[in-house]
């Protein structure tokens, strides 16, 4: 993306990059061994991973309530017995696996938790490794081996609790065996508005897109749930407040009743998920909602009948004659632009953090010296390259504290994309609506991505993406996810009025080797825009999807960007 910066990378010296990373590991290890070693745990029983397995079903509400109470009682008892116990709650992890949510957390562990200094060192090393991999200076396996050896060196010196990571973990999925071809990824635009009458209450559902792979099918939708009945909550009982925001989301229950069949008489298991716990911040619409169908429809299936509520007429989803996908162009990034992509990703992070909160500055200030140090230390870019000068200029404009290596660089003109998002940062003039976009993107860094819906609000634009890793799950991708240069593909967008949009936030849900991703782009679409180019970049490839802004309305998709009154959907 030439608009993002000027190519200033040198030919990459792999040995130099590896040497840089290894010497950095030595420096980090010297710092780590100055920290106190971990002590033997005084209460071994607290080390047992407490695991819970639950399926997202109506019973889970009861299960969650019981388990939450039990956990609260357990913790309260321990707090009473040992003052300050609450500080020792260990890390929790959540994964979704095959329709199950698995959460694991370890109780106890101040004595076992890595020192924050140790963690910061691992993060620095992994971030530098991720930078060099993303820049094409180092193979991923070599970088992972260095970080892995560093972890082991810490464990052997009792500066890190366990190895490979934590007290428990999940096995990785087996790769598909030979002779078991994976079904080609399919994305079908549906674009149906479905009003529902639930007893005396009204609800509305917008069916956006259907994505089908070898194991499952995901139907993305937005839902406006029915209003709550007044007698749901007895007056004498206060409403229960979630004790742990991380514990769960709150789906609307009415979609638990959805059933799906096909023309061959196959009944599908339809599990409803949403990440919108209490509706959108602007209204009560559930945007990141989806129905997961198992098994995946057979290739011979011609249509699906979807009954969202008992007694309502089914919605027929044709599978054999999908609408034409949007226009796609894919291109390989030249090797000398890969380093520029790293700088662009860093700029994206800085723009994102500036928007989130002023306090987020230290995060970017933490990453700036690591990324720029790795790129220059490994000889990937020159210390005074135009790309770094642009980064320094952006940092100054955003009031970031720059490391010395950047602070000394002279100001230069920013790339058009950066200038655009800065100039329109406060725009709140976006059209409101959803688009049933559906497209399967070419593989990026070994991952297949499918676009399954776009939503525009006055302040931002959101994309639903589903990813499938072709290479199987790499455990380090999960461990070091936060330390990677960026965990998701770089996404920028440009509408046909010339307004640029950058990824300002994302929510993801991981399961096995699948990723469900919602990316928020800002500033919002221009009110006069009629199409948008979505630019999804990996480390070495880039895909552009040209999407006409065909809004979904009660009567179906409307091929007109001018949505009267800015309202196209519920």
């Amino acid at each position, binding site marked *: 993306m030439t608009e993002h910066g000027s190519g200033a990378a040198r030919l990459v010296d792999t040995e130099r990059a590896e040497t840089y990373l290894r010497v950095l590991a030595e420096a980090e290890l010297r710092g780590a*061994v100055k920290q106190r070693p971990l002590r033997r745990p005084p209460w071994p029983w607290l080390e047992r991973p407490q695991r819970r*397995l639950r399926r997202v079903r109506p019973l889970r509400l009861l299960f969650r309530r019981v388990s939450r109470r039990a956990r609260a009682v357990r913790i309260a008892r321990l707090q009473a017995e040992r003052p300050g116990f609450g500080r020792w709650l260990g890390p929790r992890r959540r994964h979704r696996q095959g329709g199950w949510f698995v959460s694991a957390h370890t109780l106890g562990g101040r004595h076992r938790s890595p020192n924050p200094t140790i963690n910061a060192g691992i993060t620095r090393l992994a971030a530098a490794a991720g930078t060099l991999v993303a820049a094409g200076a180092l193979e991923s396996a070599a970088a992972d081996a260095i970080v892995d050896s560093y972890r082991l*060196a810490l464990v052997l010196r009792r500066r890190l609790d366990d190895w490979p990571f934590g007290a428990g973990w999940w096995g990785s999925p*087996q790769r598909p065996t030979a002779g078991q071809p994976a079904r080609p990824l399919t994305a079908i635009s549906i674009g149906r508005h479905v009003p529902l009458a639930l007893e005396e209450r009204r609800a509305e559902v917008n069916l956006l897109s259907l994505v089908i792979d070898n194991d499952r099918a995901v139907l993305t939708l937005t839902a406006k749930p029915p209003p709550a009945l007044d007698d749901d909550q007895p007056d004498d009982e206060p409403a229960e407040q979630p004790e742990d925001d991380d514990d769960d989301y709150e789906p609307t229950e009415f979609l638990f009743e959805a059933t799906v069949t096909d023309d061959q008489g196959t009944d599908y298991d339809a599990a409803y998920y949403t990440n919108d716990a209490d509706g959108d911040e602007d209204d009560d619409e559930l945007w990141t909602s989806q129905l997961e169908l198992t098994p995946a429809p057979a290739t011979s299936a011609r249509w699906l009948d979807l009954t969202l509520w008992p007694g309502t007429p089914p919605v027929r989803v044709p599978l054999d004659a999908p609408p034409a996908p949007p226009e796609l162009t894919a291109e390989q990034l030249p090797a000398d632009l890969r380093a520029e992509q790293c700088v662009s990703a860093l700029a994206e992070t800085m723009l994102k953090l500036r928007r989130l909160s002023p306090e987020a500055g230290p995060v970017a200030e933490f990453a700036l010296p690591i990324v720029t140090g790795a790129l220059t230390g490994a000889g990937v870019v020159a210390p005074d390259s135009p790309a770094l000068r642009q980064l320094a200029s952006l940092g100054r404009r955003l009031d970031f504290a720059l490391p010395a290596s950047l602070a000394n660089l002279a100001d230069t003109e920013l790339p058009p994309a950066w200038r655009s998002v800065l100039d329109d940062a406060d725009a709140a003039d976006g059209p409101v609506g959803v688009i049933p976009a559906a497209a399967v993107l070419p593989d990026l860094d070994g991952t297949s991505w499918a676009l399954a819906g776009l939503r525009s609000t006055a302040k931002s634009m959101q994309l639903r993406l589903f990813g499938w890793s072709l290479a199987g799950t790499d455990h380090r991708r999960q461990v070091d996810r936060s330390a990677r240069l960026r965990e998701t593909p770089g996404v920028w967008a440009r509408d046909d009025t010339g307004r640029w949009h950058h990824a300002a936030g994302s929510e993801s849900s991981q399961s096995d080797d699948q990723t469900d991703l919602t990316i928020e782009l800002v500033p919002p679409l221009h009110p006069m825009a009629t199409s948008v180019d979505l630019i999804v970049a990996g480390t070495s490839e880039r895909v552009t999807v040209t999407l006409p802004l065909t809004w979904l309305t009660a009567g179906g998709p409307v091929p007109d960007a001018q949505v009267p009154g800015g309202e196209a959907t519920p």
Partner: protein
Amino acid sequence: MTEPWRAALPPASATVACAAGPHRLRWKEGVLSAPAHPDSEAELVLTALGGDETECLRLVRLWSQHADDLNVFTIGPRTPTDRLKLVRDERATVIQLTAPLAPRRLAKGHRVVVTAGIGPPSVAHVVARHNALRRSGFDPVGEHRVELLALLALGPAFQLRLTATVASAWADRKIPPSTEPRLAQALAGRLAPVAAGWLGIDPDQVQVSRHDGPGWGDLERTESGLRATLPLSWLASVWAAGLSVVDGRLAVGVTEVNGPRATVLAVRRPGDRPEPLTVVRRASKWTVTP
């Protein structure tokens, strides 16, 4: 004639839980032996015919197999006082849970592996985890590294001697470019703390590279610290023997070892020419002798 690095390191021994009871393993002048197994060749033949390999002979075999294992540099000791907390403790608690927590849907193509351990990582602990992971089709450890951990668990003296053995093995080879980064790491991780202590500077200010060719290398004081270029043999002959800094001077090579006496080349400050210095080992410490 014994190479100087072998002679500079005094003999060491460790106790191993062998099949017939506790046996001693002995390292002397670069050779690891199992004195309790005098007819080791016959035992090796029996092993080849399907008999059980004794722990002593297994470790001797592993020692020779890992004599040029570069992983020693990445996880092994960085200073003579750098203690790896690896113990050969078969009593280490290892809890392994497999199938019971895995519902049927999760079991499709997956296996849940849950382990929890207490205490320092022991060989048993690491091996058990490795085996559990390998059964699940997931091998993050690597067989060779488990073997290496078994050798490192012999104790600090053996960790230093194994590091010296590997450094010596690579010092005489033509180094392929792909190996250079590992050797640079090996030198930087061990020379930087020594040089920093010698000059009273931050170890991060020491820039280390490998010297290849005749001569001992170079030490140059720079604005930002020290630029040091030393051969890999420095690790074997000087660093592992604890000769790095003697009497305020940095040893850059060992020319001769005769019993507890050694002659080293040492520099008082960067830029100086190295001068011979005779030192003697008393109670594992080297002191200058006239």
